[in-house]
């Protein structure tokens, strides 16, 4: 199972994701009909954050839906277009504000992962939107955590005349 992952530090705010989403789902040139939007704050803090459905396994939107039109199925919170009454309770309930509304559209606009191959991840020129297997989510954070472990010690050595540093953690000492 893969997850559409947002890396806001990489986002430039170009909004290509918005438009390709709208074109794919509605066939019209209108970024206001996208299921992903980039929110920009400046200058405190400087942030460009694409906001899109996280496909929560325990979805708040589904919990508040009075007609049970939202369900988590195989990694995607799917909207049952037949039963949805467009009451927008899900829009207000989503903790990320990731479900959108447009006056022209009968239904709330929600990311459907393009059937597993999201257009936005393919067209993002910055790699800020990625499709990542859930098993490796946050792996880079784990790695960073290891590398920044403060109890590490280091020694310098030379390999083929080039100075290098090796880090190591000393075993067997209790410094609690």
């Amino acid at each position: 199972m893969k997850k559409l992952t947002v890396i806001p530090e990489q986002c430039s705010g170009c909004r290509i994701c918005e438009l390709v989403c709208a074109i794919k789902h509605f066939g019209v040139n209108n970024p206001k009909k996208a299921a992903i939007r980039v929110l920009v704050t400046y200058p405190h803090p400087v942030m460009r954050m694409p906001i899109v459905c996280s496909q929560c396994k325990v979805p708040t939107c589904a919990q508040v839906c009075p007609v049970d039109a939202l369900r988590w199925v195989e990694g995607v919170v799917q909207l049952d277009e037949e039963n949805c009454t467009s009451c927008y309770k899900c829009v207000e309930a989503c903790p990320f504000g990731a479900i959108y509304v447009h006056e022209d559209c009968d239904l709330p606009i929600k990311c459907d992962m393009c059937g597993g191959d999201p257009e936005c991840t393919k067209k993002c020129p910055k790699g800020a939107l990625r499709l990542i297997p859930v098993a490796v989510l946050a792996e880079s954070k784990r790695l960073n955590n290891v590398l920044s472990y403060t109890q590490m010690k280091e020694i310098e050595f030379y390999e083929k005349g080039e100075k290098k540093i090796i880090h190591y953690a000393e075993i067997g000492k209790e410094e609690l």
Partner: protein
Amino acid sequence: MSIKSGYFKKHLHVDLTKGSAERLDLSDAFVEKYIGGRGFGAKLVWDNLKKHDFKIDPFGSENLLVVAPGPLTGVYLPSSGKNSFVAISPATGLYGDSSMGGGFGVELRQTGIDVLSIAGRAPELSVLFIDNGETNIIPMPELKGKSCLEAEGMIKERLDTHALHVVTIGVAGENMVRFACANTDWSRNAGRTGIGAIMGAKNLKAIVVRGDRDLPVYDVSGLVAEADKAYRYMEKHKYFKVWQQEGLMNVIDYANAVGILPTYNFKDSVFGKHNQINGATMLEQYKIGDSACFLCPMCCGNICLVKHGKYTGTVVEGPEYETCAMLGSNLGIDDFATILSAARLCDELGIDTISTGSIVGAVIEGYEKGILSLSDLDGREITWGDGDAILELIQKIGNRQGIGDILADGSRRIIEKWPEMDKIILQVKGLEQSAYDSRASISMGLAYATSDIGAHHTRAWTIAKEIEEGQNWSDEERVDIVIYHQTLRPLFDMLGVCRLPWIELGLNERHYENFYKYVTGKEAPLKELLKLSNDIYDLTRLINTRLGMSRKDDSLPYKVWANPPLTGPNAGKVIDREYFQRLLSLYYQKRGWDEDGIPPAEIERRFED
């Protein structure tokens, strides 16, 4: 074949004096002939001039401010987030335009209009709010004295939403500083020709737009296929990553290497400490993020933060090449943090960094040469690289305090007050020169001299090509490349897209005829579009000549004739006056204008309808 889509065919005209707004229809013939952007702007400004018998005070309520995106603005293709501001410029008293990126033009179109024109003057400081089909003029006197950034924040807070776009002016615009900007998306500016000052004169602090409508596109899937080809081409370009990382800052090293970097008010064209203010320094120490205009993969906007020293905490979007050169090497500043601080100050005040850098540089040199006395400077000494004094002076310009009150009126007034400054300040027609030294390239000189808005590189930027391969160009080749640039580059401003994918990454210009075709449903070969763009060049020329301009105004700054750069690859080079005049005659001849640069009567007849 005629236009099938691509336009709403609506023109919103707002009269701030009457407090009225009306949606007028645009004919097929109009949108086909003028395309959009500066094409619409030039035509509406021309009609307005005729209505007022060619007597328009740039600060008068009769000066029409046109805000015009193009038919490609906001549609799916690379870098389509541009729109133009057009009016009679307070800097030059002639035709003026300036374009801005960001997302404002896109959202303006989404309100269902192709062009906005603003006349009159609001009785008190106001905000124009176009909310889809509804237009309101809302008095907001509480915004008086607020910076561009503060005003944008306050408006979003008052309207309780982020989901709209705002153009604001700062204190400099309110004070009608003749090179004040209009600012959007926090830091994207329509920088040149004093657009912000016109808004100030109209008591218009901001224009706010919220639009939800689909943009009209004739063939969406055709457009997507064509645009994706262009995107893939750009992404594979060898300099694509450099553009994403450094944006226009990569030009600093280039300009220094070839000897065109303005240094000490163009006394020199290489800067010894250029590597302290270049892209690499920015990346290593200051850059914290990228910023892109709508649909642009190049994201040339850098976001920088000063993390140490006395300017700690300064956040700025930018700088780009012009800002960094004009507020950096041109003023002898070798500290990147000081440049960032000056750039931020200009953003807050809402003044153009090119004109500001040029004028401050001239003041420093004027003082050095004894043209300006210490009392002229209000007793505050200013020298090259003196960051504190420079920041103070910029502050005084924006607020029109002391000497700042004179400087705020731009180079014309400065020369009136101190005639010897004519030899110091670099300007054409009253607009200060951009950061490319034309002494290294006569075609660039011709470009500055014949640009319809004054000494700006937006109409033609031939300098790199001439340096690389044009040392032995014939006169004809020099004139031809200037005219080609002056035809193609303004076409981008008419279509409402950015020219950087073409000029910097070599994206084939033929893509644009296809984009135009898929959006409008009308097949027009590039040649035909260029012809329409050329017509607009005739029209802006006509505006200028009818306002009194002629051959004598198509000139260059004194330094270009008389003071060569002191060191570097172009040391000793100046432009020969006689040779320049010969090229100018050839240029007029090729354009079909008379020996005095006046377009003939049959050209004027083309714009009668």
